[in-house]
């Protein structure tokens, strides 16, 4: 694979958010990675699984813990051409949440459906 071809290659890259926000930085630094990779015109998707769904919860206000919030950025990902947001249905239900609780429109899928999408990727990165 030669260097000059890089610009023409579009890889299917899925980012997986599986950790709760704020307790650790993984979701936030993961979001930074997503934004950069999207700027390189790759075929980006993001899957929210387990506590990762909490990253999308409405009403987060991090002022009192003095950590920068980022729910708004997740809500504006389509502005960065990241439009494929998948949420694992069981993860949502287990947490007593539904789509109305989330800051952005997402596609709620079964774990099997997300598993099939994972299988189609060139790259899966967990954060």
């Amino acid at each position, binding site marked *: *694979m030669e*260097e000059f071809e*890089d610009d023409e*290659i579009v*890889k299917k*890259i899925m980012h997986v958010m599986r950790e709760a926000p704020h307790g650790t*930085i*993984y979701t936030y*630094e993961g979001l*930074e*990675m997503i934004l*950069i*990779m999207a*700027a*390189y015109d*790759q075929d980006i998707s993001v899957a929210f699984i387990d506590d990762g769904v909490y990253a999308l919860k409405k009403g987060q206000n991090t002022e009192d813990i003095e950590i920068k919030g980022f729910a708004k950025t997740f809500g504006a990902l389509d502005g960065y051409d990241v439009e494929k947001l998948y949420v694992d249905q069981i993860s949502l239900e287990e947490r007593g949440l539904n789509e109305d609780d989330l800051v952005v429109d997402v596609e709620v899928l079964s774990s099997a459906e997300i598993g099939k999408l994972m299988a189609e990727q060139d*790259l899966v*990165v*967990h954060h």
Partner: protein
Amino acid sequence: MNIGILLKEGPYNHQAADTAYKFAEAAIKKGHTIDAVFFYNDGVINATKLMDPPQDDRHIADRWKNLCQKHGVQILACVAAAKRRGINDDVLIDCGTITGLGNLTDIAIRNDRLITFGD
């Protein structure tokens, strides 16, 4: 086969740095090319030359330096993650480079695999 490695935890505290290294060593032995090891999150702590473990323990920073010097593996630390954790050029291991996430994206694009180690 061309392989990139993404390492998301610091040395000693998590086994991830050890597994990533042992994997890289085995891949090189089998004739594969490790293009780069990219440090992200607390992984950037792997890039400090000030690391000074007990004499009878493995020296993780030296492992990365050797991979770079002997096998041409790029040893890269994400600049934004590095700045948060006090890693800059003053303490960077020989042969290492502080760089951006764009470089990681290039690595993801040009290699056959990008394998994540973390915790």
